[in-house]
């Protein structure tokens, strides 16, 4: 590890505490920036539009824990838990560890590096105290496990270096939520085996955002892209707080197969007083309005197709349409993950019209015919 401060802060290469999405070698992006940030770097390298930002690396986290003495104190708490603690014991340990993270200031060296990087981001965004998304970006094979989806903290609309530093420490601490602790205990994984990185990403001013799947997330049908969307930021959708518009698109020809407009009661909006994205009631005039037009649906679908092709397996993505986006511009991808759902032979769409197979499936199966 090279402790010497860099004299050329814009490159980011000479210091392992921070890596920029657009500068890190995609090959080592996941190792340094965790899976979430690493994939953004991969996407950018493959030509997909992603927001600007940098990762507070795994090394920075490890060094913080080591140098501040957190490592020993955490190990002591976990050591006391034993192999089969009660739920209450796990929760108490989680609270204790997370309090330690909150109470332990970021060291001088790292503070300087993060300040530098944040100022660089402000410069790139042509903004003072640019609002950012601070996202946990876990490492290790288990980080991609669906069990970890949404388990670590994300802060949207964080503005100013002090708040950014606080958000980074909270993200670190979220490696020790009760759920994460319990999971690692059950699987016998040490927290040292899955250190966490944190992404600091320019907050895209979202007109609309949502998720998209390159296969049907329930049936696994691979012939379509499924998009769910609402106004504002995607948090309300990801957390299941809003019933989103549901769109299905044919993968082969990009045709919109169906667009179900939902009654959207809640919106994730930027609260300037608090300085964060929070959930509020959806304005009545927007609640029943269709969120996406055909051009926007097409842009989302083409990004999803490109990402699936790049990885060679089905993916889900979180995307944002910026207020400044114009027709023809790509949409911004803020996150992507592999999708593990696959179509069971039962549910796979038939490849051809086979009256015998269909009669067997629907008529002679002992189950009611669908739709009756």
């Amino acid at each position, binding site marked *: 590890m090279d402790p010497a401060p860099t004299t050329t802060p814009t490159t980011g290469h000479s210091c392992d505490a921070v890596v920029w999405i657009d500068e890190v070698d995609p090959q080592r992006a996941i190792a340094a920036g965790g899976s979430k940030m690493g994939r953004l770097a991969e996407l950018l390298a493959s030509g997909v539009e992603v927001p600007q930002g940098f990762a507070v690396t795994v090394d920075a986290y490890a060094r913080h824990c080591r140098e501040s003495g957190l490592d020993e104190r955490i190990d002591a708490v976990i050591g006391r838990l034993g192999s089969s603690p009660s739920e209450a014991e796990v929760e108490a340990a989680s609270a204790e560890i997370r309090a330690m993270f909150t109470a332990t200031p970021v060291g001088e060296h790292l503070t300087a590096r993060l300040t530098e990087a944040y100022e660089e981001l402000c410069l790139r965004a042509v903004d003072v105290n640019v609002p950012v998304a601070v996202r946990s970006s876990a490492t290790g094979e288990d980080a991609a496990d669906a069990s970890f989806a949404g388990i670590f903290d994300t802060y949207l609309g964080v503005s100013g270096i002090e708040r950014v530093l606080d958000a980074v420490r909270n993200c670190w601490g979220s490696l020790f939520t009760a759920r994460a602790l319990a999971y690692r205990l059950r699987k016998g994984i040490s927290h040292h085996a899955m250190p966490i990185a944190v992404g600091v990403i320019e907050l895209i001013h979202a007109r609309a955002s949502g998720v998209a799947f390159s296969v049907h997330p329930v049936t696994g049908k691979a012939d*379509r892209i499924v998009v769910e969307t609402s106004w504002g930021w995607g948090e309300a959708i990801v957390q299941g707080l809003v019933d989103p518009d549901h769109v299905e698109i044919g993968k082969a020809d990009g045709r919109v*197969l169906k667009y179900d407009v939902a009654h959207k009661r809640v919106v994730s909006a930027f609260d300037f007083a608090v300085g964060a994205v929070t959930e509020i009631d959806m304005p009545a005039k927007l609640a029943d309005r269709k969120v996406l037009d055909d051009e926007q649906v097409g842009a989302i679908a083409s990004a999803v197709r490109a990402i699936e092709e790049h990885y060679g397996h089905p993916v889900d993505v979180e995307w944002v349409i910026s207020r400044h986006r114009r027709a023809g511009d790509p949409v911004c991808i803020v996150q992507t993950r592999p999708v593990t759902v696959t179509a069971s032979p039962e549910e796979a769409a038939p*490849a*051809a*019209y086979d*009256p015998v197979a*269909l009669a067997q499936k629907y008529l002679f199966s002992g189950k009611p015919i669908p*739709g*009756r």
Partner: protein
Amino acid sequence: MANVVPVDEFATGEWYPGFKPEHFESPYIVDAASPFKPGDEQGFWFLDFHWSRGLTPLAATLWSSDGYCWGTQHAAEALPLPPGRGITARFAGTHLYGCALPETDPREIGARANRIGTNLPHFLANYRSIWEAGRDELEATWQYFRGVDFTGTPDLTELLTQGRRYHKRSMEIHFGVMYPMLANFLGFYGACADMGINPAEIGKFLQGEDTKIMETDRELYRLALKARQVGLEPVFEENEPLALREALGRHGGAASVWLTEFDDFLQVYGWRAEATCDVGVPSWIEDNTIPLGLVKTFLKRDDAHDFEAAARNALAERDEAIDNARSGLTREEQAVFDAGLASNQAANFPWWQDDHNYYIDLKVMLPLRWGCQELARRENADNKDDMLYLFWPELQDVASGRRPYAGELKSLVAERRQYFDHWFAKRGEMPKVLGTIPEAVEDPVLIEIFGLNPSAIKAVQNPDAAKQTVMSGVAAAKGTARGIARVLQSSDELHRLEPGSILVCESTSPNWTPAFGKIAGAVCDGGGMLSHAAIVGREYGVPTVTAVGVATLSISDGDEIEVDGTTGTVTILTKATTTADTAAETPAGVAG
């Protein structure tokens, strides 16, 4: 835990006076027809709507043996149906209950699945020639019977035997075509529903093709307009259907010319009985009351029914439904849909389901009926349909002179008439289902023709059915209608329908079709998306809900009801204040 409705009440061993078990002796494949027997509660029995009057001894044994226990069981072996062996029949009094015969041996089911894997594609590839060959064969036999001089034939035994063979052969052809067509259609239906197509739309994809039955309706309607044109409306207004023929004859002039045209019409379209496969029911030629009554009803309507516009609308609605469905499918799904649609257009089950009645269901029992009537004449029977109250072996004995009709058989016939009337009056109280009730059935005929979907099976088990005011069923033909319910037990009561009535019945068959020209809505206990009522409801633009299960129990004659054929909901708005006028009428078909 399956619900079991006991059959004990009907498995008493008592049946038509003078009945002996050997009266049912007739070839069958898996299970023979009979009155209910102890142990039958292991099966799932449904009250068959086709014969809502009940069946005379001859009609009962002929249909149950030749139709179900030969026709369906033969076809279920020939295709075969992997998990099913066709339908068998039991009688509770004069009322027929059907039951699908399951195949449960897994190895056998596998072997049968292999066979249908070869036979169904072969059938679909050759559907047209297979059906037309069967139809032409039956038409040739029909022409033979038309040419026979029943009166001049000394020994009727041979003719009756030929009539029986014609009847039985027609059922082989009928179900031999119906099972594979239904398997193809229901597989397509399931695939469509799985691809997210609204099930209410699927029925439209194959609608709008002209059938012999629709042709009959158009011709009859044309005659009605002609009657109006030549000023015969008052004659139709002033006379009840039963008296119309005579009144028109008396009127002379234009009426005589009209009657000649009417008779020409009957020579083409009148060889149809007033019920499906019931030897106990006359044809339009034998009894003009029904077609004349229909003309009378048509004339009550001021706004002319535009058949051509209705046909155009049906086709336009079909094309729109297909386009809408395709637009929601991926390219891969469109390939499956298009091929499935092409296959089902080539072998169009909804079309066949209406059209074949002209060639089979409404007339194949007529030669037997003629033979019975001729025999009645020779035996000086009190009524011309007395022979229909004999069992088949008794009929053969009388025809061949082995046994006299006068004496024992004649008095048995009188007793059996009473038995028939007794059970006729009980039709409304007959349980809709008996035995062990499943959640779902696999026989395509039960699913499609009887509308035995899980929700209908559930509905018929509701102990409070008589008290409910909101019912649901299959949304068979879109639109909403309000009107006064006319709860009909059989097509004998079609004359009770007024323009704007809502028809409520167990189910309809082709002889009910003309009624759709005047009713505002229709509700049926049975019948699926492709049942007669559903198809005709769509063709005529009459809001229709089928497979309600218990509509005839829950709705009383005279209730004001609303039919929502778009959502499949039926609501009783106002109960009728009096229950008068609802007593069962004398069955016209069996009145001497």
